[in-house]
């Protein structure tokens, strides 16, 4: 990509982001429907559209609020008032929000809808995510708790320890990710944690899963996020001459054999029958997005990545191609990924400042890209932002990356 506009001319397959909205993250003690409805109203207001203008609503499901959560699209449509829109509900673990965006985009590009509302919201439990109840020995998510007591942070800790062994990363390096993200989150009114954190505070927090400490690991939160997407034709007809555009939505599966131990698995695939592909599953998610968008890491103004742990943010630097394998700490220490740096990562404050609200999180990442690309991100604005990527990964082989441009 060259020239002063990373976004460049309109590319076939783009959809416009007309509106973005969130219900602030926190522990509010209310139901997910309320958060989702508030986010949806905010996104519609941002778009200057009425709910009755929406042709289709796509909900990202939550599995933590019973049946209404499994049919989130209809649940949000009912809360907003039935108006006859096409309805879709999707679940894809942490990538649910991105798959919802992907479904909305497909409907727009297929000509099935002009305006689609995408909503995700969660009311999260306190503490470790636990599996669904009952005796279910055929469910790997149940088994990893039953046999190993392997909570999510245990997996993040395995990856962190591996970085330390392979690349010489240290706990002090990981703490610097927290310091960076807390500084950005302090500037974000939608973040749950809005206070600067020092490396000393990270080091003084309790070890949860060696080598990771409490402040290395993201919390679970309540929150809601929504987007109003439309066809480029609809956007232009509405007078939005230069809207933020979604140019790629990657939701690829891993390829066999997957050789990195992943949630909720007890073992990797075996590499004896088939040689593993080069690069990690995470890097393949980003690569597919770059290919679809026709741009690369060098074109990015910013990135929002899934920092379930501080160390995992460093993995993402390498996986989305900001630096080579093992070079993430160098990039971090240079300040390249901080606000004011060459390519800020998690200018929103990231999961570190939000805590994870599973089905809302990947949508919230795109909300941040939208505000950054519009130049309306306030104190955390990345100057002249023209292209951004989101990246996330979840249980059961899910992951996503969204590229947005302006």
């Amino acid at each position: 990509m060259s020239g002063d506009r990373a976004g460049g001319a309109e590319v076939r397959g783009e959809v416009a982001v007309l509106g973005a909205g969130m219900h602030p993250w926190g522990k509010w003690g209310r139901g997910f429907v309320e958060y989702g409805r508030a986010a949806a109203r905010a996104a519609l207001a941002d778009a200057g559209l009425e709910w009755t203008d929406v042709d289709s609503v796509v909900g990202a499901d939550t599995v933590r609020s019973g049946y209404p959560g499994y049919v989130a699209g209809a649940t949000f449509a009912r809360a907003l008032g039935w108006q006859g829109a096409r309805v879709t509900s999707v679940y894809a673990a942490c990538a649910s929000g991105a798959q919802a965006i992907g479904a909305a985009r497909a409907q727009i590009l297929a000509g099935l809808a002009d305006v689609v509302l995408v909503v995700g919201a969660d009311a999260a439990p306190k503490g470790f995510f636990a599996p669904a109840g009952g005796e279910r020995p055929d469910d790997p998510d149940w088994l990893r708790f039953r046999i190993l007591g392997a909570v999510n942070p245990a997996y993040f800790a395995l990856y962190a320890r591996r970085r330390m062994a392979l690349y010489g990363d240290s706990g002090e390096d990981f703490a610097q990710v927290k310091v960076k993200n807390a500084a950005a989150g302090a500037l974000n009114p939608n973040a749950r944690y809005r206070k600067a954190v020092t490396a000393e505070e990270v080091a003084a927090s309790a070890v949860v899963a060696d080598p990771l400490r409490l402040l290395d690991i993201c919390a679970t939160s309540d929150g809601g996020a929504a987007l109003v997407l439309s066809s480029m034709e609809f956007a232009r007809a509405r007078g939005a001459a230069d809207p933020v555009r979604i140019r790629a939505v990657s939701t690829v599966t891993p390829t066999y054999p997957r050789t990195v131990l992943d949630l909720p698995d007890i073992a990797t695939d075996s590499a004896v029958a088939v040689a593993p592909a080069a690069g990690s599953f995470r890097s393949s998610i980003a690569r597919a997005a770059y290919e679809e968008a026709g741009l690369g890491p060098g074109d990015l103004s910013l990135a929002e990545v899934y920092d379930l742990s501080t160390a995992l943010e460093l993995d993402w630097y390498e996986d989305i191609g900001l630096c080579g394998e093992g070079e993430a700490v160098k990039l971090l220490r240079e300040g390249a990924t901080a606000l004011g740096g060459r390519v800020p990562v998690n200018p929103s404050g990231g999961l570190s400042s939000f805590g994870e609200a599973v089905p809302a999180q990947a949508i919230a990442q795109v909300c941040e890209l939208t505000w950054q690309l519009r130049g309306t991100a306030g104190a955390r604005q990345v100057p002249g932002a023209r292209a951004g990527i989101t990246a996330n990964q979840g249980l059961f082989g899910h992951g996503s990356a969204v590229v947005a441009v302006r």
Partner: protein
Amino acid sequence: MERTRTPVVQGWFTEADAEGGFRLLGTRCSACTAVFFPREDAHCRNPHCPGGGELAEVPLSPRGRVWSYTDGRYRPPAPYVSDPAVPWDPYTLVAVELEAEGMVVLGQGAPGVTVADLAVGMEVEVVGGVLHEDATTTWLTWQFKPVGGVA
């Protein structure tokens, strides 16, 4: 009353293989040689498998090298079984790379193995152990410990 000794999952390990040792049990596809652990008995998951093979039980390598490791400093939620009346005793988790199978298997460390005893690349072996006991049953599992014991 004597407790019954029961594997926490049936068919994932044997306490005494042909040579009398504890071994994890996987399955191997006769058509493409892919190995699966936990055992896959219904279908081969290799997309390039020519098909038509059988999945036969196969013991996994008794030794491997540490891919990574961690511990659990807080009590995990159910279905992990622990007595809330007893102070939490952290356990160690070890991810072990089995060279012959080309895979990484996760397991708890044997009693007494802490993160301080481990390093990435260290040789470890699989051993039988007790996950927990209740009134009627001793629940058995697999564990890893450094070859030659803990320093």
